[in-house]
């Protein structure tokens, strides 16, 4: 692990060093390089596929797991399967994230396939940050697939952030909610240059009294393109709210296609979507604080994606 590694770990997982407590797994250039299990959280490599199984004992409280991935070489194509088994009544935070530093001319890609099996009454907060850097012309590609299976009265909060520097991303997310389960998603994404981002999400509310809140906020600069397709499907007495909100700049293109389906008369589902420029009065207001236009724009974007 060198300086670049730690700099990227800091950006994607808030780690400036190896955590002194708690379970973690660090994957670099397609190989697991450091790992620690704890009494309640066991991390084991998969036998049939690249990737790990993370098993969290029932009743585990207030513990954190860090599973960051970094790629520092060009031409890496890393496909990884990670499965999370969260025991009944556990309450944990999982910090993932992927950083690519590509100084070469060949594409580096990380495709993480994550499955979450969340037990009854368990509570999970999942944070995932994606970031790309490097002076090379090689593309930085991240295609995460996330599948969430939620048992009765479980709670899952997912915050996914694409900070910058990712040339192409296609996110595929699905969730299945049993009775009383609650799924909260906050997706934040910024694209610039000629980057492309697509996020497809389907949340099936299968159990009575289940609920979902899906919020996506994005900023598209330069000639980048974004497509959002979040879908909520109500199959029982349930509540869901889908919201897409984007700031469009320069020559960017954004398409927001929130969809809602009710297969049960007791489903209550709402969607809203908005795309627009930065409001001129917002810029003027911040300029009356002494900022120049660029500084004002940065503050507005930073706030919007905070």
């Amino acid at each position, binding site marked *: 692990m060198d300086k670049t590694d730690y700099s990227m770990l800091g950006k994607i997982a808030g780690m400036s060093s190896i955590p002194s407590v708690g379970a973690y797994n660090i994957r670099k250039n397609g190989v697991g390089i450091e790992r620690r299990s704890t009494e309640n959280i066991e991390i084991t490599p998969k036998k049939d596929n690249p990737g790990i199984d993370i098993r969290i004992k029932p009743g585990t409280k207030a513990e954190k797991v860090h599973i960051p991935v970094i790629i520092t070489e060009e031409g890496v194509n890393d496909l990884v399967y990670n499965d999370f088994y969260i025991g009944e009544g556990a309450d944990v935070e999982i910090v993932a994230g992927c950083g690519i530093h590509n100084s070469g001319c060949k594409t580096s890609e990380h495709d993480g396939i994550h499955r979450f099996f969340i037990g009854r009454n368990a509570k999970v907060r999942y944070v995932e940050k994606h970031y790309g850097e490097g002076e090379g012309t090689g593309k930085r590609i991240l295609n995460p697939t996330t599948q969430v299976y939620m048992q009765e009265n479980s709670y899952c909060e997912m915050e996914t952030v694409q900070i910058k520097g990712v040339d192409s991303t296609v996110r595929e997310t699905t969730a299945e909610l049993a009775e009383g389960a609650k799924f909260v998603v906050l997706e934040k994404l910024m694209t610039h240059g000629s980057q492309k981002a697509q996020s497809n999400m389907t949340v099936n509310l299968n159990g009575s009294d289940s609920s979902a809140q899906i919020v996506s906020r994005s900023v598209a600069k330069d000639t980048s393109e974004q497509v959002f397709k979040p879908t909520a499907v109500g199959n029982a007495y349930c509540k869901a709210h889908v919201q897409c909100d984007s700031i469009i700049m320069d020559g960017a293109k954004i398409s927001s296609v929130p969809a809602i389906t009710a297969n049960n008369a007791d489903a209550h589902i709402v969607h809203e979507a908005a795309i627009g420029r930065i409001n001129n009065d*917002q810029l003027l207001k911040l*300029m009356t*604080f*002494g*900022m120049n236009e660029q500084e004002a724009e940065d503050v507005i974007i930073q706030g919007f994606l905070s």
Partner: protein
Amino acid sequence: MLEIKNLSFTVENGNTETGIVNDISMTVPDGRLIVITGPNGGGKSTLARLIMGIEKPTGGQIIFNNEDITNLSISERAKKGIGYAFQQPPRFKGLTVRRLLSLAHGSELPEDRCCSYLTKVGLCSQDYLNREVDSSLSGGEVKRIEIATLMARELLLAIYDEPEAGIDLWSFTMLVDSFKSMMADRKESVVIISHQERIMKLADEIIIIADGKIRAQGSRDEIFPKLMGEFDNACKFREQSV
């Protein structure tokens, strides 16, 4: 001291030019509180926006503390100590009240300072510090926060553009009270654009602007009785009181 010399602002409308501000000259001596009033569409807000630099004049000069600031940008004027409270303040998704006050101040403000500003504008600070300045706030709440952003700055000249606009009767009474106490211990010069009798009563001097020109100006005791007489129809401030 702010000196406005022969200031004009015209807009082109097809082939004709319409004067919004026509050859206005006035001064705001240090520490004075001046209320500008007059009918809607008379040029008051444009004058305020010209002083802040949001609009560029088509003629005349603006001198601030002996320096010609006519061609300075908004942010350059801000750095010289001029502040402007918008008539319709914009909202910011994701920016908390605390962050907005810190941005106004120019550096991170300690919690107790933020709280004291919010208390002064009649907001219960603990309820508001971490709220976002977005559409979840009412018009009255946003206006109060707008006033607090001016307090968070160290200003030499504060301009308030119709602080009462968009505020309900209940909030307005509290707003006037907060303005009263704010004005009592202020150091900066203040220009308030207002239609409200109770705000005019705080003024050292009142200026009446209509059709882009100064129609009358003088001390509060001199101008205030006139508002009840000859300018009553033009100003309509009593009908517009909330």
